[in-house]
């Protein structure tokens, strides 16, 4: 499934994408291994979620992730695109890859804005 490019983020959005969130706004996921079970992963940043999605066996509730992007990050465009990926993916593996690619694209755009170092907590 081909996906159109995301629009350029505003300066404010880039800052939010690159900023860690507080404990109450964390997102929980898992990475799975046969001989370790489901390792819980607590994520406090957009980049940590991208890292999780790049694991060979990631698990995250896509609807929670969409809500996190929409409400916590305030990125309506990306949230819509994630919702579209959830609908269009044939299975969770497909959805994971589609969402990962979208989030990697957004992260890359925001890092190009140059606000990375000073905004991480």
């Amino acid at each position, binding site marked *: 499934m081909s996906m159109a490019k995301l629009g350029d983020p505003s300066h404010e959005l880039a800052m939010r994408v690159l900023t*860690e*969130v*507080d*404990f109450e706004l*964390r997102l*929980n996921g*898992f*990475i*799975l*291994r*046969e*001989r*370790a*079970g*489901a*390792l*819980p*992963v*607590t994520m*406090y*940043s957009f*980049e*940590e979620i*991208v*890292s*999780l999605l*790049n*694991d060979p*066996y990631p*698990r*995250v*509730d*896509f*609807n*929670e992730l969409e809500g996190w992007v929409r409400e916590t990050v305030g990125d309506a465009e990306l949230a819509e695109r994630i919702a579209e990926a959830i609908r269009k993916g*044939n*299975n*969770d*593996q*497909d959805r994971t890859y589609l969402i990962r690619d979208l989030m*990697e694209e957004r992260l890359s755009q925001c*890092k190009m804005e140059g606000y990375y170092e000073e905004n*991480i*907590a």
Partner: protein
Amino acid sequence: MNGYAGKILRIDLTDRRISTIYTKDYEQWVGGHGMGSAIFWDLVKDKAVSGFDPRNIVTVMTSPLSGTLVPGASSRTEVQGIGVQSSPIEWFTRSNFGGRFAPMLKYAGWDGVVIEGKADKPVWVDIRNEDVKIKDARHLWGLDTWKAQQEIWKEVSGHGFSGWVELDSERRTTQRPAVLTVGPAGENLSRTACLIHDAGNASGQGGFGGIWGSKNLKAISVIGTGSIQIADPKGLMEARLWAQAKYSMDLKNIDASWFARFGRKRPQNRFWDPHESARLQACIGCHLGCKERSDTGYGNESTCEETAFYAGYDKAKHGGKQTSAAYIATDLLQKYGINSYEATRGLTYIRALQRMGVLGRGKRLECDLDFRKLGETEFADAFLNMIAYRKGIGDDFAEGFFRAAKRWGRLEEDLKTGILPYSYWGLPEHGYDPRAEVEWGFGSILGDRDINEHDFNFLFWWPSGAIWAGKTPQPPAEQVVKIVAEKLIPYENNPLMLDFSTDNIYSDHIAKLVAWHRHYTRFWKQSVLYCDHRWPEFINSKVPGYKGLTGEGEPRFFNVVTGKKFSFVDGMELGKKIWNLDNAIWTLQGRHRDMVHFSDYIYNVLFAGSGNYAIYYLPGREKGWWDYICVNGRHLDKAKFEEFKTRFYNLEGWDSRTGWPKKGTLESLGLKFVADELEKKRKIGV
């Protein structure tokens, strides 16, 4: 005594006395855990002392198969004693590690080592065949586990790491001594401290590193030139060829659809990205090898949980790229000698406290760690160094994060929410959550520790991966449970033992599954020391009908080595006996059924969210049909778990009001002397 060296080394560090226990005196327990529990019973008169008390002993035991060519059974070493990690009671517990130590101990002529007392200053034990010396270790004290081993290798071999090691005028070897040692964490009595052997073999659970530290014991080194008498050498080679022909995969022509455990393809058991260039490394006698040595020199021999410690933080910090930070952080765990489960769960926990504004510079819990550097080597080293040397708040961390939370007045609250993921006995959750994979959690809370026995995990792994990828799991659930149930002797052919649906998890069937698991592992895996990575094998796609090696393989290899005529059921019976002896020890330590319960979050918080997003599948029945069913999104019911305990105690012949073993049960297992002791202490079940 085929398979045995014939004697066990007994070392009293207090009096610096070295003596011998004849293995024959404990042969009925076969080896490993069984012998260790029996020796502990005999030598530790007051079983309620602290693990740090000099009266506590540590047994380091091999099995008749150690050092032989039995596949996946030659290398494990069983460590036992009163641990210091669990809470509220420091249970008599166990740990286990691979590598070269057990075979080398056998080649030196010893079936095990029993460590008693406490030295008045740091010592190490130098074993060269029958020659055993307790030596001054002040020059080793303070060294990390790798440097300490290097120093001992040099001292024993006299000329570095190559060439012959002359043990006397007639005996020499090219092998390095096998060294088991503690790092700074053990020296500083951390309850999270491990025993480390070679680069990445750890006896991690129980805090045995701290116990050795309390005894002023830095290391045991062993080098041997002997061999082990095999009852039927031809039969052993035939058994190997039989297992290879029938169960092993063709590793040169790998098919992704294969499934097996004994004869599987290269293991995928790491959390970090694979090394670009590495070769497999195996324990002595193993037919596969699950560890690696890389051209970078980082992360050598580490596998499993310790590779999870820093891999994610490293990637998140470095734009999704795995850098050397992940591998070096794991190496630091090994060098300091710190339990990776404590470090991994503990770091998640204190990070949560940091994000809550509770922990950090100038916060209520003063902590110097700079979380902006999380993901860099510098942060990992600072965190682990604090634990190892008890620096600042690291003094709390070194107690284990359960005890740390208690010191901070946060324990009750953080166990209620589950942000402190310690589900049983104050110990970190492994990943097979009790709310989902109940045989793991139930076995742990009814025992002494996170069981760390992966016997049934394939039941989650195959369907959870396949369904995620949009495929139909193969074989179907009904076929899988039928094959596995056939092998659950003496409860065979009851597939309901593998029904993980919520309606069934508190049933007599699951009680039988938990009992089978306790008895199987106590004997075949922890006494005979078949490796958890390869045994048991229930299912193998190479075999018509998919029936794996288990049931036939275990006794066949055991018998050709020992010359005994053990059946699989004989082993299960002995496993039950050993399990009952352990429960008698826990009873004398103060166990009562009222304290056998999970942390609050297991009863109050749903596992992995609402369950709307399915991540964890296991076999189960829905509306009478077998399928792989989603088991996340549920929590345990406390009242029903209490009912389950009653069922389990009744099944085991234990008093359901107390959980204590009954006299008749112990006597029927040949444990009258145990029953007598419990009766004398008024702790016998009725």
